[in-house]
């Protein structure tokens, strides 16, 4: 009986969590402009999305392009910076190390809106004209701590003598980094990159405050503006369904990777 109740509880939770997504996904296969009206199965919205047969198609396409480009650049830079930072923090000793680790966690707990507003004020203060550059800088800022966090466990698992063993065998510090350290950290760096990529993809608040007035739109700001103009463009429904599917696949890939790595190291 207890088992049945707990099963029911889990299912209710899952339904609450996923029903909005499922709802959008179902209604992406119908033509009705108003969400909730089912006018029969149709792939027209998908077709419109890819052929541009809709109002404001070009701005939607450019928003998608911007989103992907920003996410790729931000995730790449964050992975590089975060990995180097993790190595540095790992080699610190005593109180300094604890302090830095604590400071690394703050940006992740800090509400996005505060990160966004404070970056906005900083850019204004420094007279940096806002646009692509400021959005990427902002995304790098909030993505880097996630990379640090996913690389760190790889460093603690690593035999501390490995780097020294490489030096001992004649590798210069940079050769030791490339040939020994990075291959060891790679799984953590890849997880960090994917995490940073999805964080950037997902962001609204920070982008909204740092994109300036040049009309730069990412997907999230585009949807926001679109919704305020009077109802969502129906083509957004298939778009969201596609994005959700991509994120789902990525998450499954990460989890499967981690599970197989854990299995390998426990052997």
């Amino acid at each position, binding site marked *: 009986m207890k088992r049945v109740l707990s099963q029911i509880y889990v299912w209710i939770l899952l339904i609450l969590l996923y029903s909005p997504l499922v709802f959008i996904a179902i209604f992406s296969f119908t033509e009705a402009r108003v969400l909730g009206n089912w006018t029969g199965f149709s792939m027209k919205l998908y077709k419109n999305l890819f052929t541009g047969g809709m109002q404001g198609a070009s701005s939607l396409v450019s928003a998608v392009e911007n989103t992907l480009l920003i996410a790729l650049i931000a995730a790449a830079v964050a992975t590089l910076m975060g990995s180097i930072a993790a190595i540095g923090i790992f080699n610190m000793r005593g109180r300094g190390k604890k302090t830095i680790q604590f400071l690394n966690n703050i940006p992740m707990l800090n509400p996005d809106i505060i990160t966004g507003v404070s970056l906005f004020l900083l850019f204004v203060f420094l007279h940096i004209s806002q646009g692509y550059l400021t959005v990427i800088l902002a995304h790098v800022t909030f993505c880097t701590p996630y990379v640090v966090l996913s690389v760190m466990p790889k460093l603690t698992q690593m*035999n501390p*003598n*490995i780097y*020294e*063993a*490489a*030096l*001992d*065998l*004649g*590798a*210069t510090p940079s*050769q030791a980094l490339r*040939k*020994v350290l990075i*291959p*060891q950290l790679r799984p953590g760096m890849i997880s960090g990159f994917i995490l940073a990529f999805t964080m950037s993809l997902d962001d609204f608040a920070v982008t909204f405050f740092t994109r300036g007035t040049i009309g730069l739109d990412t997907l999230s700001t585009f949807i926001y503006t679109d919704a305020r103009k009077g109802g969502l463009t129906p083509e957004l429904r298939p778009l969201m369904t596609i994005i959700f599917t991509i994120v789902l696949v990525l998450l499954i890939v990460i989890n499967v990777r981690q599970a197989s790595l854990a299995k*390998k*190291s426990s*052997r």
Partner: protein
Amino acid sequence: MAIPNDVIINIEHVSKSFGDKKVLDDINLYIKKGEFLTLLGPSGCGKTTMLRIIAGFAQADCGIVSMDGADITGVPPYKRPLNTVFQRYALFPHLDVYDNIAFGLKLRGVPKDEIEKKVKKVLKMVSMSDYEDRDVESLSGGQQQRVAIARALVNQPKVLLLDEPLAALDLKMRKDMQIELKEMHRKLGITFIYVTHDQEEALTLSDTIVVMNGGKIQQIGTPTDIYNEPQNSFVADFIGESNILNGTMIKDREVSFIGHDFECVDEGFGENVPVDVVVRPEDIYIMNKTEGAQFTGVVKSCTFKGVHYEMFVDSDNGYELMIQDYNAFEIGSTVGLLIKPCDIQVMHKERVENRFEGEMTADDTVKFLGGEFKVEPVEGVSAGDKVEVSVAFSGVDLLDHTEEGNLSGEVHFILYKGDHYHLTVLTDDGDFVWVDTQDIWDKGDLVGINIESKDIKITKKND
């Protein structure tokens, strides 16, 4: 110190601290070409730090390390012609056995066919042929250690450094590997510097043993020297089993301990000088009859140890001695005991009492070791004077609760002296206090330290 010309590594005045803790204190040591030298000591004695300084992973705060006459103190590890076998192997998990071993050769740009030849040869030497393609994580501990040794040796280093390489292996495997290492050393003829805390391993393998404790070299010598002629009570206690006893050198070739006078072979200590005496348990002759014996005793316990029996015997003057003999003696029986002159090792005492620098804070109060103690007033010594404080080992009282003492500390080292324990206590401020006590303490016990006023002797310092 005259340095022979076949020296490969010379270490002069090397010191190293981590924070306030001095791990190496003015180390001077030279290592001869082709020698198997072992740095031996308990954990925290500085032996691994010494090895890391030789390898170049750690920098000495001061002092010089030279190799083949050239100063290498500031040379980075990748430019030093030596290789290391690490304690936990430190193989590269993303590479297979072949690529692990070839790592150093590839970096030096050795041609491919030559690398293959060398790797095959070295794998044969460590009896790991046919393992080239194996994933290193699929190997057993012993196999990983062989690969680690092969990875170091394939570069043909002038010196091989080994940091407790066998510590992670089980006893049987360790014994086998010891023989193999000794054999490799003989065949290759290169210098081995070996770090271990296992005294038996050190005695088995080494040409020269360097016993270290508290960041200092305690003794350098061959295994036989170290075992038969320990220079202080630490070495005697650390290497093998021993009876360490307080004694008095009466005159040359005559020493008194456990309440009897013995003939010995030591000279030059002076007359009536307090000394430490070491007698190995296998060097006390034990017999059923008491005629012809130097002294007698009663057998307290007798344990079979495989080859021999280990017995604890109370001597006629109340000292407990450990004795090893091939024959068992009945518990409770009276036995005759005999020690030959050449089996008595006499050592200078490192100290005969505690001495501290102090300052009078009142006419009857002295401050030393960061605590204040009542003393009986001494004429001519008043508040503000700098004084020398001396306290007999037996004048220091240890208490169960740290807050009950004037000072608190931790039991750092214990030596059994036949009828009492001689304890080294490390105070919270990092000073040493030596204590003689009948009570049983364990290493690491936290204790309160008290000294009664009658046990504190003060003398004014003349400045």
